[in-house]
């Protein structure tokens, strides 16, 4: 039986990264390294107002006093922050229509199957495509504008909506929060900004595709989403990146704010380059994602499908401040070869009758390590708070590891928390049953894994659920391709 598993693993591990290619686009590059001059350079390049320079410098000065965190169950060589380039932008930018987009960029997007195409637009997807650090195309803006919805790049928001940005930027993830958040605050280049006015239901999924395209260019995205009273928005972030030998640092920050009765649904499909089969290369993904249910009866829901990156360090969290607010976290994390993922969530119950739900599915293959780390904290005033946590691990083969670290801190006696955890293997009997019905071993693994994750995938917007399923199959697939 061990040999069968090994054979399967061989095949699974033989699959090469499908989206690995390098685009040839002229770029504008900052000098390598990080100091106050570089911060000035970024600020100047972006033509930002004075207050942003102050903001960035404050973050940078604080960052210099901080230590890189080492508590996660991941290991990697020390990162030389002075060897990283902190700014790169394609030279052509801010186009009005799709036709003006650099054909080379469009070709890449097509190869990736990214929906810059008419069909996809007709399907109701507005795309804010970020290539490296600068926005190159924004679509469907007018239609959104009619409803008063602001969906633009962070750079544009800083220029056009400074009041909103000043009020909310850093309000959920302050630069003091952690090492990578401080770094991001100092050097972030771009990202997305969304504001949905009171009572408006955003009629389409908003989506952004991030890519890393320049060697030794760190990617520091900054996203801010504000859902005003009684509004609703669903946002999808998806990533693919080309093959690189050197490790690349990615330290994004995402902040969500939901006011009274508002709902934000944030979905991620993450497929950064995971490194090769020997564990060389791949993205270091150190992300800080946090939402606050500021208003009563508000709701924030994170759904993530994480298949890429050499190292993932990511805990999308919800602060449940408003009474009766709801936080959700649905996660699938797949690791293969030498990938390491330490991911989970934090649910901080502050308001009364707040509820949270955590469903995590970790799938480990190859020599990878897959860790769930979660914190449920119920503060003193959170009467009748409720949490349900379920974290399941699936092992493929016997050279990988799955770990769970659920922390629960309850300071209110009326609160109820529930925790369930399982660890399972893809059994030979399951595989044999599938094969006896004519399904190949490889397809059977994909089928079983997709079934295992179904509960989470169901929370993704329809069209992306299909994409995510393919991605799961690709990241675990064998000899095909």
């Amino acid at each position, binding site marked *: 039986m061990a040999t*069968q598993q090994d054979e399967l693993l061989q095949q699974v591990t033989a699959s090469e990264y499908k989206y690995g290619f390098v685009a040839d686009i002229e770029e504008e590059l900052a000098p390598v390294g990080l100091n106050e001059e570089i911060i000035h350079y970024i600020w100047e390049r972006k033509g930002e107002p004075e207050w942003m320079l102050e903001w960035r410098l404050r973050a940078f000065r604080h960052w210099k006093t901080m230590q890189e965190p080492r508590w996660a169950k991941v290991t990697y060589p020390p990162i030389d922050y002075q060897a990283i380039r902190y700014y790169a932008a394609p030279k052509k930018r801010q186009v009005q229509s799709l036709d003006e987009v650099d054909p080379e960029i469009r070709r890449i997007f097509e190869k990736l199957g990214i929906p810059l195409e008419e069909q996809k637009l007709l399907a109701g997807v507005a795309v804010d495509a970020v290539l490296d650090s600068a926005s190159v195309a924004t679509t469907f803006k007018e239609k959104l504008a009619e409803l008063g919805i602001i969906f633009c790049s962070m750079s544009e928001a800083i220029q056009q909506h400074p009041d909103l940005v000043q009020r909310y930027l850093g309000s959920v993830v302050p630069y003091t929060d952690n090492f990578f958040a401080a770094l991001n605050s100092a050097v972030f280049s771009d990202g997305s900004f969304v504001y949905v006015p009171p009572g408006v239901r955003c009629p389409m999924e908003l989506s952004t595709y991030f890519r890393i395209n320049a060697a030794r260019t760190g990617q520091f995205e900054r996203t801010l989403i504000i859902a005003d009273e009684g509004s609703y928005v669903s946002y999808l972030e998806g990533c693919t990146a080309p093959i690189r030998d050197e490790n690349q640092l990615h330290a994004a920050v995402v902040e969500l704010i939901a006011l009274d009765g508002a709902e934000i649904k944030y979905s991620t499909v993450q497929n950064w380059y995971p490194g090769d089969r020997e564990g060389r290369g791949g993205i270091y993904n150190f992300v800080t994602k946090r939402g606050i249910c500021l208003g009563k009866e508000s709701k924030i829901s994170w759904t993530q499908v994480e298949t890429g990156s050499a190292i993932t360090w990511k805990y999308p969290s919800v602060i449940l401040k408003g009474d009766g607010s709801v936080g959700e976290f649905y996660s699938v994390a797949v690791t293969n070869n030498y990938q390491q993922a330490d991911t989970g969530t934090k649910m901080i119950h502050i308001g009364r009758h707040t509820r949270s739900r955590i469903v995590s599915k970790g799938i480990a293959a190859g020599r990878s390590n897959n860790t769930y780390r979660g914190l449920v904290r119920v503060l003193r005033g959170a009467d009748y708070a409720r949490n349900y946590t379920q974290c399941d691990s699936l092992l493929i083969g016997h050279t990988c590891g799955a770990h769970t670290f659920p922390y629960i801190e309850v300071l209110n006696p009326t609160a109820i928390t529930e925790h369930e955890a399982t660890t399972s293997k893809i*059994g030979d009997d*399951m595989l*044999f049953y*599938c*094969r006896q*019905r004519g399904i190949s071993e490889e397809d059977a693994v994909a*089928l079983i894994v997709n*079934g295992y994750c179904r509960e989470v995938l169901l929370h993704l917007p329809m069209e992306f659920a299909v994409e995510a399923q393919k991605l799961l199959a690709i990241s675990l697939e064998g000899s095909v391709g």
Partner: protein
Amino acid sequence: MDNILIIRNLRVAVEGKEILHGVDLEVRRGEVHAIMGPNGSGKSTLAAVLAGREGYDILEGEVLYNGMNLLEMEPEERARAGLFLAFQYPVEIPGVTMATFLRTALNEIRKARGQEPLDPIAFLKIARERMSWVGIDPEFLQRGVNESFSGGEKKRNEIFQLLLLEPQLAILDETDSGLDIDALKVVASGVNRMRSPERSFVVITHYQRLLNYIVPDVVHVLYDGRIVRSGGKELALQLEERGYDWLRAEGEELVLPSIS
């Protein structure tokens, strides 16, 4: 060539222990063969080896399926070539819907037969029809494969898959055990509906009762890893009356030839 299956002197060991001590069996196209025998005599082992489960050591012998060397084929190749096993203990695959699972399976098999794949709508139509033949509610298509099915539902589900995949050789491993009398009739009528000159069955059972409904052409007794006796359907009645002990002596020296 009339034989769909020829087993010659098949000796099989599991974890170093010999279970099948030289099985010979020939099944002609269109025939129904019943295999009976006491617990642990090797019936499921034989079925598993035919379907290609791993973990069995073939010590000796050969198996021809439609003239092909069956033992050299991957399990999925055997399935695509029309060999079907209704499992004694069907496994649960949580979260994988019956619809997804069976459409994938059916389309693989159709591909092997040179047929076009079925789209979801065409698939649903045929699936619903076949489910009605064995009295399974169509809503089961949206449930996980065997997930939380009752024992009887699992068995019916195996027969439903048989009806859907339309194999050339179906091996039923104790599909009748644990069924109430109504379910037994449903299962039997499903099988009878599929009987044709082109399709053969190997029905493993402990109970003569099933054979009242699925009337076999030949009955074999597998005893301690050997087929010790073969006969017509009246052999099943004899076994019901007398048990297996009277065959023990025969098991040692006397092996009757198949009457087929």
